[in-house]
């Protein structure tokens, strides 16, 4: 199936039923198996969307996460109305996602390493960036700088939220500016791109990681595939804007399957923070080296 049709399809949350048809390989899979397997399809390895809380549970040591700015709520500076007024859209998004906004921030530990963590929730208005996402990200970056913590931001975003127009756009400048000072302090920023990460989010903090990781087959780009297709009036190459495509073009460091994410991030941080090397394991029996 092409990437194009994959992202255009609406993606309902995984129902509570016993089984579902995989949206990627169409095999019947048990929800329980999915949930016990990092939300990967046991048949085709398709990476299903994770909520911010599921992502935090995946990455942080148990009970180590302490949230900041949990009650920050967006305003409606433009009095924007599309199908419904923006405040109503916000209320619906809160209900649907269980989050107050599209970014959850805080501090915690990952394999006992203290770090600052931001995770976007795609279920809240497509993970779009408005004032709250920008402000929470900037505060997180500033806190990480003040406390000299390494920083990880996990993106899943459709870009800047149109309902805040120019004020939303300026959040790109705000978050990137905060990262200028963070970088100046000599601290490491890891950016993890998940499906999908596009638009102004990609064109700001998400692309500024000292190391950039992505989940397999995640859609990552500046412009969305539909816009590009409309502009150039050609079909897009196979795999265009996938994580693997970006890796091949030198835009990211690693594509990391979800089960290896925690260990990979912690491993990178040990290098970046120059943590002491643990005692090497016992040497293998001599026979192993003979071959």
């Amino acid at each position, binding site marked *: 199936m092409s990437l194009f049709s994959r992202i255009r399809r609406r993606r309902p949350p995984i129902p509570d039923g016993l089984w579902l048809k995989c949206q990627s390989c169409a095999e019947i899979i048990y929800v329980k198996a999915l949930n016990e397997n990092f939300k990967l399809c046991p048949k085709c390895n398709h990476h299903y969307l994770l909520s911010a809380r599921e992502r935090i549970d995946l990455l942080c040591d148990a009970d180590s996460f302490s949230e900041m700015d949990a009650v920050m709520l967006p305003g409606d500076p433009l009095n924007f109305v599309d199908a419904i007024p923006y405040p109503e859209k916000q209320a619906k998004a809160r209900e649907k996602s269980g989050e107050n906004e599209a970014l959850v921030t805080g501090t915690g530990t990952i394999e006992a390493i203290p770090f600052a963590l931001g995770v976007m929730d795609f279920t809240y208005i497509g993970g779009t960036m408005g004032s709250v996402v920008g402000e929470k990200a900037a505060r997180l970056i500033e806190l990480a700088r003040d406390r000299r913590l390494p920083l990880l931001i996990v993106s899943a975003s459709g870009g800047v939220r149109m309902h805040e127009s*120019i*004020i939303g756009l300026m959040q790109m*400048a705000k978050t990137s*500016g905060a*990262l200028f000072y963070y970088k100046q302090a000599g601290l490491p920023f890891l950016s993890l791109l998940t499906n999908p990460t596009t638009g102004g989010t990609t*064109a700001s903090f998400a*692309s500024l990681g000292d190391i950039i990781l992505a989940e397999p087959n995640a859609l990552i780009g500046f412009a969305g595939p539909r816009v590009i297709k409309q502009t*150039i009036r050609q079909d897009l190459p196979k795999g*265009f804007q996938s994580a693997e495509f970006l890796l091949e073009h030198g835009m990211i460091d690693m594509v990391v399957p979800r089960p290896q994410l925690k260990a990979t991030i912690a491993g990178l941080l040990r290098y970046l923070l120059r943590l002491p090397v643990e005692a090497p394991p016992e040497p293998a029996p001599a026979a192993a080296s003979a071959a």
Partner: protein
Amino acid sequence: MITYDFEKPIVELEKKISELRKYAAEVNIDAATELGSLERKRDVLSQEVYAGLEPFQRVQVARHPQRPYLQDYLRLLCTDFMELHGDRRFADDQALLGGFATLAGRRVLVLGHQKGRDVKENMRRNFGMAHPEGYRKALRLMTLADRAGLPIVSFIDTPGAYPGIGAEERGQAEAIAVNLRDMIGLGVPVLCVVIGEGGSGGALGIGIGNRVLIMENAYYSVISPEGCASILFRDAKRAAEAATALKLTAKDLLQFGIVEEIIAEPIGGAHRHPEHAAQLVKAALVRHLDELCAMPPDALRQQRYEKFRRVGVFSEA
């Protein structure tokens, strides 16, 4: 010259004026009184029409094919321009130009988007839509200006950063993101002016200024009215409605504190009186440059960060 519907009554009057002038000259009569009254009528009408433009009509003015572009301002404002080329990585993007310029006796670095005047030039200029190499060239030149202690003047006029295969392959998003971050660190004054279209990330990619000015009929938005209409209203034809909803006019931007000043345009728009428009731009640039040049590098960085850091509307229970 393209005439928009709302300009038609003005153009009619202008035609009448020039016909009368021609006729008076031919038959050698004195028509000064009639001419004066017609001209006054035209000015009043122009003022009324332009004061009452709907947001989408302003977008149309901002996109007028005769509107002055960067190179026109360079010609009209600067006594010297030495263009510098290339990003040292891939290409020289002709949609985004830059180089040393002399502005009212001051040495500065000027850069900005450049649209084409005709189909042929637009092939080369890509309609003012830069690729990653344009943004990387801009940063290369800004970094150079920083080292040389030259103030930077950035002219913004783009429908947006180009959405294409090559642009994605070469990291359009990364190129813009790096500019947003590293422009904060420049130790010289950065003065931006939106002269036409302020198209989203493509505009912001050279838009991190200590001050951002905008011309009266320019606009600045997260997305084009057409793009917004097709996504949120599911109908690209509702662009006029989207333009209103997006609050993208110079007045809106001043109210939101996104821009520091609106540069007035001559009556009838910059495209009707480019020289006059250029003088108004020059006066504003010189005034702001003089103020910014008095600030030390760290204060410039800090003020620039604060300008963007404080933007946002939210509440905390």
